[in-house]
Every structure is written in structure tokens, then in C-alpha cells.
């Protein structure tokens, strides 16, 4: 393991992303959200703070997820397609280091994009006279943990299937995981006993992105921040699931002929 190489590779991903103006697109998106919010504010939406916060949380989560999937599913395939991979793997670093560096780069770009969006959505919320509360900071941090899983899943998928299939699968998992989990729970409850462990296992394999959405808690005053043990459990889940996904990707990539 070579953590210095991880940082170097991650810096490279961020620099490329900034130069490619990926983050400009995010900023423009944020300004559009802000302008829309401003227009709604002009027509008057007083008393709808909870709705505005809920909407803001959904928008942030949605766009953050889109950015995470697009960035993470293209990193490794681009390296192979553009043949920029060769000078990298010719260096004295392992393929695990390469994967970790790319993963951290994807997480860094997603985090920057998410924070830009959060800042601009925050300005939009201010138009509705909604102030910042500690639960909003917790919402952002927990959401970023969830996005780190999205990045790990994206990178793993991009190593086991084509880039287009990986991004499609990434979107299906990210936006459909709630539905999938509900369907699995229903199937578990209605299925005969011997089948239930199967649904349990499948449910454990599906990424539980819904756990990282605290927008309801952020929107409803009085609920307050989630307890520390919940956040701790979420951190453990994020680290464990991301680690498992990266291990899956590495298992495919470590001996792959390039």
C-alpha cells in the first residue's frame, strides 16, 4: 500500500476534472437552482420552509448522485480507452494503489461538486428565510458518506462491465435501491420460511443508499440531528460496503491484461 500514490492520483483526477470544466457544469446547475428558487420566492412561498428544505435535500442528493456516477464510472474505462493507463501502471505502484487513488479522486471531485451545490442551494434556501441548523451539516456529511459508496460501486461496475452498462447499472442501483429494498422486504415477509434467508442475503448485497438520506430529518424542525451511534453505524457501513466494492473491482483488475 502506497498512500502517497493515492493522494497523487487523486490530485490528478481533481485537476483533470477542474480543467475539463466538470465543476463548472455543477456550478451552472447550482445557479439555475438558485434562480428557480429566487423566482418561486418572488411569487411568495412563505410558510413552506419544510417543503423547501425537503426539496433542496432531494435536489442535492439527486444531483450529487448523478455527478458521483458519471465521474466514477468513466475514470477507469477512460484510462484504458485513452491508453493513459500504461505510463501509470509502469510506475512502481500496485494496481490496488491505482484503484484507491482513482477512487479517492472520484470521491474528492464528488465532494467538491456536492459542496458547491450545497452552497448554492443554501443561498436559495436563504431566499426563503431558512437559516442553517446543525442537522443540515449532518445531512451533508452523511450524504457525502453515501456518495462515497456510489463512487465505489461506480468504479467496481466499470471494471466488470462496459462503461455504458456500468453507468446504467449505477443509476438503477442509486435511484432504484429504495424500491428494490422495499420489494425485497415485501418478498421476505410474504415468502415461505426457507426462501427468507435468500432475500436477506440479496438485501444485504444491495447498497442501502436510503440510509444516508437525512433530508426528512433536516426538513422537519424538532426532529434534531441523528444520534451519534447512528452516524457511527453509517460510517462503518459506508467504509465496509465501499471496501467490499473496491475489493470486487480489484479482484477483476489485479490480473487483467491491459
Amino acid at each position, binding site marked *: 500500500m502506497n498512500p502517497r500514490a493515492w493522494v497523487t492520483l487523486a490530485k490528478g483526477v481533481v485537476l*483533470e476534472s477542474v480543467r475539463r470544466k466538470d465543476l463548472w457544469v455543477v456550478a451552472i446547475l447550482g445557479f439555475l437552482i438558485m434562480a428557480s428558487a429566487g423566482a418561486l420566492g418572488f411569487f411568495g412561498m412563505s410558510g413552506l420552509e419544510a417543503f423547501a428544505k425537503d426539496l433542496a435535500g432531494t435536489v442535492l442528493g439527486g444531483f450529487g448522485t448523478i455527478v458521483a456516477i458519471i465521474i466514477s464510472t468513466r475514470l477507469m474505462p477512460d484510462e484504458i480507452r485513452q491508453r*493513459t493507463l500504461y505510463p*501509470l501502471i*509502469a*510506475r512502481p505502484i500496485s494496481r490496488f494503489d491505482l484503484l484507491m487513488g482513482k477512487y479517492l479522486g472520484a470521491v474528492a471531485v464528488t465532494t467538491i461538486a456536492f459542496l458547491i451545490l450545497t452552497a448554492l442551494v443554501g443561498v436559495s434556501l436563504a431566499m426563503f428565510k431558512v437559516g442553517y441548523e446543525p442537522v443540515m451539516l449532518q445531512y451533508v456529511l452523511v450524504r457525502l458518506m453515501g456518495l462515497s459508496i456510489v463512487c465505489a460501486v461506480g468504479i467496481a461496475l466499470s471494471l466488470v462491465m462496459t462503461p455504458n452498462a456500468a453507468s446504467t447499472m449505477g443509476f438503477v442501483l442509486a435511484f432504484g435501491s429504495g424500491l428494490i429494498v422495499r420489494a425485497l422486504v415485501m418478498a421476505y415477509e410474504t415468502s415461505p420460511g426457507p426462501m427468507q434467508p435468500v432475500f436477506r442475503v440479496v438485501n444485504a448485497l444491495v447498497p442501502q443508499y436510503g440510509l444516508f438520506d437525512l433530508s426528512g430529518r433536516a426538513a422537519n424542525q424538532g426532529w434534531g440531528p441523528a444520534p451519534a451511534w447512528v452516524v457511527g453505524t453509517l460510517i462503518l457501513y459506508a467504509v465496509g460496503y465501499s471496501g467490499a466494492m473496491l475489493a470486487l473491482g480489484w479482484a477483476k483488475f489485479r490480473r487483467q491484461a*491491459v
Partner: protein
Amino acid sequence: MNSPAIAVHDLVVHYRNRHGQPIEAVSELSFTVQAGEIVGFLGPNGAGKSSTLKALMGFVEPARGHAEVMGLPAGSIAARKRIGYLPEVAMYYPFLTPRETLRLYGELQGLRGRSLRQEADELLDMVGLGPAAGKQNRHLSKGMLQRVGIAQSLLGSPSVLILDEVTSGLDPVGRRELRDLLRARQRAGTTLFFSSHELAEVEMLCDRILLIDRGKLVEERQIDELKDELRQYAFTFSGQVSMVGLTDQLRSLPGGLTQAYFDDKESLLTGLERVHEASAMLVDVVAQEGSLEDYFVNAIGRAA
């Protein structure tokens, strides 16, 4: 005795086709490259050159056999620390500048701080990219990208340079500069192993060539020996002189002149003696360098 810089033993590299069947790209290939040598790796398209180089770098795993670089298992991190590699197609991050590209690779090579910045700038100057060091790679020509590639391969002063199609995209001036650069590296003790289709470059640069076809070693020659072997001698004379037993390559020229061609120097000298003994008039004597291209085509043809 020191271990060779590169040692390849019975190397077999397979790829799988779309149906999952193995296709042999390299077939029981064995050779060595001694430290400080410049060895050219030649062969027609699809001969297995790039696959061999990739196996040396650990980009593909051999199905059988093994390879070592500086006594270390090929592809290992320890071996890669001592290798500078230039890929066949030079592609570098389009939105980074050559300077940033070299610093990124340098950091991955384990270099840091001011010494890395200095080395990167020196290498960029050395390959003639100093003025373009701040331009993004996507704005550089193919030849300039190749220079970025050459510069990155020299980062950290590697003991062994493995260069795939090294002269690709370079103009004649660039090729000459590259030759000078690589020779300087050799004088400093670096071993060079490179593939190329540019036979003239190979001839000017190499100590030895390895010729492969269909994954197998066809010939292994010292370049000086080969050049001697390929060199042809000829002289032109007037009058009647028998060249029986020396050459049958005689050409009649206008004015009663005859031109005789010889494959080796000894035959030429004997022929000259016969001209002298017959009191014939000698018009000229020439030595013609043989064509490496003809040798290449013939050797591949013989192996087929």
C-alpha cells in the same frame, strides 16, 4: 558474474479471442540483454513485440515461462522502480500540461519536492519541450506528445529503458536528438531495449538486434557483424579477367567495361589481384552498404 539486465526464458503469452479461445502472441521466447547494451527488437506487425514488452512490464501475465529485469521478477514493483517505459501509443492526460504530467509520474516514481520539479524541467528541456511545458497536452502535436513520453520514461534515471516504437511521430531532427539522448544514457550505464519499425534508426542506434516473427525468435545478430555481412563490394574494370570461383555477379557496361560484385572483402581482394595479374585497367572500387530492410524481409521470409 552479473545477472543480465533483461532475461526472458521460454516466455509464452496468450490472449483470448471473443470466443474465449487462447491465441498465442508470444511462443517460448528466450533471450537476454546485457547491462549497458542497446538492443533493438524487430519484427513485422503482430509478431509479438508489444506483447513481450508488456510481459516485461507486468501488463500481461505470461501463460508460461518467466522474465526478469535486473534480476528481479518482471512486473514486480521492485523491477518497475528500475525501468523507464515508453508505451507504443503516446497518450497523456489531455488537460494536464507536460510539466504537470511529469510531476505526477515523478511522484508515483517516488520522487518528491524540489528535486522532482528540477528533474521534470530538465527532462522537458532535454527533449526540446521547454517552451511548451505549460501548454495542455491536448494542444500538443503527435511528435511533441512522443517527447513527453520520452521525458516521462527517463524520470528517476532508470537502469533499464523499455521503449515501444520509440521514434514514432518524431521528425528527422527529433530522431537525431533522440539518438544522441539515448546514446548519452547508454554511456551513463543505462540498458536500452526498444522495438521499432524504423530500420535505419535501429541500424544507427543498436549494438544488437533480436528479430521475432509469430512470437518466436527468428534471429539474434550483432549489428556490426550484420552490417559487414550485408555490405557488398564492387569494382569496375576493362579487359578480360576471369572471376570464376569469386563471383557470378558480373554486369557489362558501355565502353567495354565490366562491373563485378562481391559478397565479402576476401573475394574482392582476390578479384583485384586477378585484375592486376591480367594487366587489366581498374576503373573504380566501391563498397555498398547492404539494406537492413532486405535482410529483414528475407529473414522473415525464411522463417515463414
